[in-house]
């Protein structure tokens, strides 16, 4: 009488899946860009619009690309963490001011401090789109060869910095 036990078996398998699904974060979308070359771009600097920056300049170094904006609430949460990180001087952080007015961006940094090695302005969000940005803040770890090694969606915290980002940076730098 196998067929009568079948519903129970199917349900059992299903509940295992449901259990596994409990912890998952439905918001998070893994970036398909991880493991691929960081998209190239040329953008003006926020502070000196006359000058431009391109990822090529970071060739040979491990760096962080942090997408932020003055209008973004969670960016304020991660800001002190980034400040602390910049003081340790372990890895350069490039800030990308995403879909922001230059004045607002500058004012924010002036008030709260500037953790970035340099800040670029992506006023129309075109570069952000190329990087698959959909929720600011986002942080990319990019290796010496210009490959995106990791993408964090949401705020950088002391915890994910300690557990994920810094070990990864150290590992990449050692290569």
């Amino acid at each position, binding site marked *: 009488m196998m067929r009568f036990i079948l519903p129970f078996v199917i349900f059992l398998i299903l509940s295992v899946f449901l259990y596994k699904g409990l912890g998952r974060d439905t918001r998070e*979308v*893994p*970036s*398909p*860009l991880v493991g691929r070359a960081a998209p190239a771009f040329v953008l003006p600097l926020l502070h000196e619009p006359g000058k431009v920056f391109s990822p090529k300049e970071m060739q040979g170094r491990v760096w962080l690309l942090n997408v932020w904006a003055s209008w973004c609430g969670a960016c304020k949460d991660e800001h002190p963490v980034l400040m602390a990180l910049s003081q340790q001087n372990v890895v350069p952080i490039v800030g990308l001011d995403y*879909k922001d007015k230059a004045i607002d961006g500058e004012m924010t940094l002036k008030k709260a401090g500037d953790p970035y090695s340099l800040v670029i302005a992506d006023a129309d*969000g075109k570069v952000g*789109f*190329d*990087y*698959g940005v*959909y*929720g600011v803040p986002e942080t990319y770890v990019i290796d010496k060869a210009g490959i995106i090694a990791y993408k964090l969606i949401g705020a950088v915290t002391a915890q994910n910095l300690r557990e994920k980002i810094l070990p990864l940076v150290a590992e990449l730098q050692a290569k």
Partner: protein
Amino acid sequence: MKYLLMLALLLPTLSFAEVAKDIADDPVMERRMMLLAEKVRCLVCQSEPVSNSHSDWSKDVRQIMRDKMKAGATDQEILDLLVERFGKSVLFDPPVDKETMPLWSAPFILLLLGGAGLYYQLKKRRGEVAEAELSTQDEQRAAQLLNESPAALNEKTAAQKETQA
């Protein structure tokens, strides 16, 4: 009074009105864009397509779709681009591939199984129940079945049914 009211109603039609312009420069393309946007999930919303979302991100994606369409990209190229940037989960309409084979085939496999199961059950029942309660009436009918051609039998039962109803 009545005339005043009528006048008031007529007034708007008399003023110098213009025919409103479509928001989109190209309504045909806009329609195509919206149809495509229905297949794209808004990543910052919960479960809304880009076509129905008020979020900034969706507005950006719609604009990018317009730009790409203007530049001559096909729908598939635009979807491919979005997948390249944001991953497969951006598609509401998952393409048929190795991972989604079970998804797309499940309904039809289930239907086949269900249909076959029902057919088998009905057939089995017919045998078992007939055995269990073979009445004289059934015996007569069985005899008829053996003697008569199916067509004749059908007509006969049909006639019986008519009189019963």
